[in-house]
C-alpha cells in the first residue's frame, strides 16, 4: 500500500510541475504583462507610456527576467515555503491563500455536516426497497435538485429566504467578523446541489447489498428487519458512499467559486477568480497547487480508506 501512496504522491508532484509550468507559460505572454501594467498604472497611463518607460516598469517588477529563470526562481521559493507575492492584494501570497482556504474550510465543514446525514439517510431509505415508492421519490428528488445549477439555487434561496422572508442577509461578506447567520445560505446552496449525487450513490450501494446472500439469510433466520438493516446491511452499504464523499472535497474547491462570488463570501473560490482575472500570477499558482494537492490527497484518502473499510480489497 505504501508503494501505491508513494506512486500517487510522485504523480502529484509531476502534475504540479506540469500545471505550474503551463500556467507560467500562459501568464508570461506579453498580453498578460500588459494587463498587469494596466491594472497597476491605469489604462491611459499604459497607452501613453513609451517603450523604454514600459521596460523600466517591467524591470522594476522583475517581469523582464527571462521566463525560465523566473520559473526556476519561483520553484525554489515555493520549495522553501515562499509562495510569492500578490500584486493585487499587495501582500504575501502564502498567508493570503491559507486565510481564504480556512474560510472555505468553514464553509466546507458546514456543507459536509449537513450533506452527509441527509444524503445517507435518503440513500439508505431508497436502496432498502428497490423500485418502491420511496425509492422512486428519492431518485427523482435527487435528479431534480442536482439539475438546478448552483447559480439558480443561490438565486432561489436568496429570493425566498433573504428577499421574501427576510430571515437571512443576502450577502455573506462577513465584514463585521464571523457570523453564523450569514453562512447559512451559501452552505444550503452547496448542499442542495450536491446531496442528490451522494444520495444516488448510497442508494445504488444499498440496493446492491440488499440483494446479497447474507441479507437474505439474515431475513430468513427471522432477525427483525430493522436489525438486519442496521447491523448487517448498513455496514457494507456505507463503504462506497465514503469514497464518494471524500471525493466531493475536490468538487467543492471548484464548486465554491460561483457560490462565493454570488454571496460575496471571502473564500478560496473568490480569491481564485479575482486573481485569475487580475492577473495575479503567483496567487493563481498557489491556488492551483493547493487545488491539485487537495485533489490527489482526497483521492489517496478515499482509496486507502476503502481498503480499511472493505477487507476484501487488497492492493497487489
Amino acid at each position, binding site marked *: 500500500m505504501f508503494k501505491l501512496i508513494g506512486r500517487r504522491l510522485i504523480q502529484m508532484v509531476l502534475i504540479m510541475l506540469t500545471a505550474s509550468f503551463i500556467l507560467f507559460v500562459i501568464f508570461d505572454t506579453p498580453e498578460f504583462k500588459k494587463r498587469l501594467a494596466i491594472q497597476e498604472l491605469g489604462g491611459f497611463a499604459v497607452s501613453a507610456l513609451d517603450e523604454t518607460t514600459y521596460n523600466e516598469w517591467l524591470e522594476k517588477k522583475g517581469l523582464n527576467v527571462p521566463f525560465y529563470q523566473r520559473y526556476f526562481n519561483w520553484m525554489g521559493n515555493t520549495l522553501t515555503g515562499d509562495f510569492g507575492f500578490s500584486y493585487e492584494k499587495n501582500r504575501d501570497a502564502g498567508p493570503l491563500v491559507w486565510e481564504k482556504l480556512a474560510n472555505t474550510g468553514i464553509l466546507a465543514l458546514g456543507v459536509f455536516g449537513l450533506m452527509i446525514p441527509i444524503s445517507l439517510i435518503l440513500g439508505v431509505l431508497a436502496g432498502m426497497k428497490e423500485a418502491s415508492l420511496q425509492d422512486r421519490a428519492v431518485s427523482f428528488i435527487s435528479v431534480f435538485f442536482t439539475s438546478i445549477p448552483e447559480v439558480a439555487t443561490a*438565486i432561489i434561496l*436568496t429570493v425566498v429566504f433573504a428577499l421574501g422572508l427576510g430571515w437571512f442577509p443576502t450577502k455573506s461578506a462577513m465584514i463585521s467578523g464571523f457570523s453564523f447567520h450569514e453562512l447559512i445560505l451559501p452552505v444550503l446552496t452547496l448542499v442542495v446541489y450536491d446531496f442528490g449525487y451522494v444520495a444516488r450513490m448510497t442508494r445504488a450501494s444499498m440496493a446492491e447489498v440488499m440483494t446479497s446472500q447474507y441479507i437474505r439469510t439474515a431475513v430468513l433466520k427471522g432477525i427483525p428487519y430493522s436489525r438486519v438493516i442496521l447491523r448487517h446491511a448498513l455496514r457494507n452499504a456505507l463503504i462506497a458512499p465514503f469514497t464518494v464523499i471524500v471525493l466531493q472535497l475536490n468538487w467543492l474547491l*471548484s464548486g465554491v467559486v460561483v457560490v462565493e462570488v454570488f454571496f460575496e463570501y471571502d473564500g478560496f473560490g473568490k480569491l481564485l477568480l479575482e486573481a485569475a482575472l487580475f*492577473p495575479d500570477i503567483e496567487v493563481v499558482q498557489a491556488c492551483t497547487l493547493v487545488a491539485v494537492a487537495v485533489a490527489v490527497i482526497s483521492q489517496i484518502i478515499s482509496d486507502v480508506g476503502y481498503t480499511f473499510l472493505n477487507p476484501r480489497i487488497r492492493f497487489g
Partner: protein
Amino acid sequence: MAVTETEVDVRSVPLLKRLTEPKVIIGLFVAMWVPLMLYVMFGKYIGNAKDIMLLPAYPATVILYILGVRAFRESWVAVLGLTLVFFWIFMAVTAPYLPLLDPNKPIAPFTVPFTEKRDIFFWLGTDFKGRDMLSRTIWGCQRVLVWGVTATAVAYVVGTAFGLIAGYLSGWWDEIISFLGNVLLSFPVMVLFIVILNYLGPSGFNIVIAVTFASAPAIMRIVRGLALDIKTRDYVFAAQTRGESAFWIMVVELLPNVRGPIIVDACLRLGYTTVAITTLTFLGLGLQPPDPDWGLMIKESAGTAMLWKFSYMLIVPALSVSSLILGFNLLADGLREMSLRD
C-alpha cells in the same frame, strides 16, 4: 459538475435500435440543427437569408420530438426529459417568428410581470434597462443550446479520438495521453475554465475550447476503457489479420462499438456543459452582452434587482436554465433505465 465519474457499463446499449429509422432521424436532426447553428454562430454574416433560414428546422423539430416520444414511450422519465429539452429547442427555432418585442430594445424599465405600460402588456415584466423579459428568455435559449451542444460535441470528438488511440495503440501513446488526461483532470474544473477563458478572451468559440479541455479527458478515460475491452474481441483480430491499418480498425471496428455506452454519458454531459456555460457567463467569462443569454440576465440583474419586488428578473432565467438541465438529466436517467432493462 458534481459527477466526476459516470457509471457506464461496457455492455453495448441497444438504444439506437429503438429508433427504427436512423437515417431519417439523422436527416431530421441535421435539418433542425444546422440552420439553428448557422443562425446563432454566423448570424452576422448571413444577412437577409436569416429571415427564412430557420423555416425548415421548425417542422423537423416537431417530427423529431414525436419520433422520440414514440421510441422512448416506455419510460415516462425519458419522455419528460425529452419534452423539456424539445420545448427549449422549439423555442430557439421559432423565436424569430414569434410575435415578440425586440429583446435588446429598452422600453420601460422595472415593469413588474403581468402589467401594462405604454400600451404593451408585459407577461414577465422588463429588466432594469426596460427590455422585455419574455422575449429575452426565449431568445436567450438559442445561445445556451447551440454553444452547449457544440461544445459537448467537440469535446466528444476529441475525447473519443484520444481514447481510441490510447486504448487501441497502447504503449507510449497510452502513457502520454493518460498522463496529460490526469494533469487536466486534477485541475479543478473552474481553474481550468477561468485560466483558459481568461487567456483566450471570453467568446462562444473559446467556451467550446475550454469545455473541450475540461470534458475531453473524462470522455477519453471512458472510451479508452471500452477500447481496451473491445480490442481483444475476435473481429478486431480478424481485421488485424486482414492487414487493415490501425486507423481503419479504430474507425470501422472500434468506433461503432463504443458508441452505445457513451450516449447516456453524453446526455449527462450536455447538462454539465449547460451549467458550465451559464456559470461562466455569470462570472463574466462567457458570452458577452448585449444579446440575451440566461447567464448574462442573471449576472446583470444580480447587481440591480436585489429586492423582493424585482426578484422575477433573477427567478425567470434561473428557472429556465434549471428546466433545460433537468431535461437533459431526466433524459439520461430514462435512457440508462431503459438500457439496463434490455
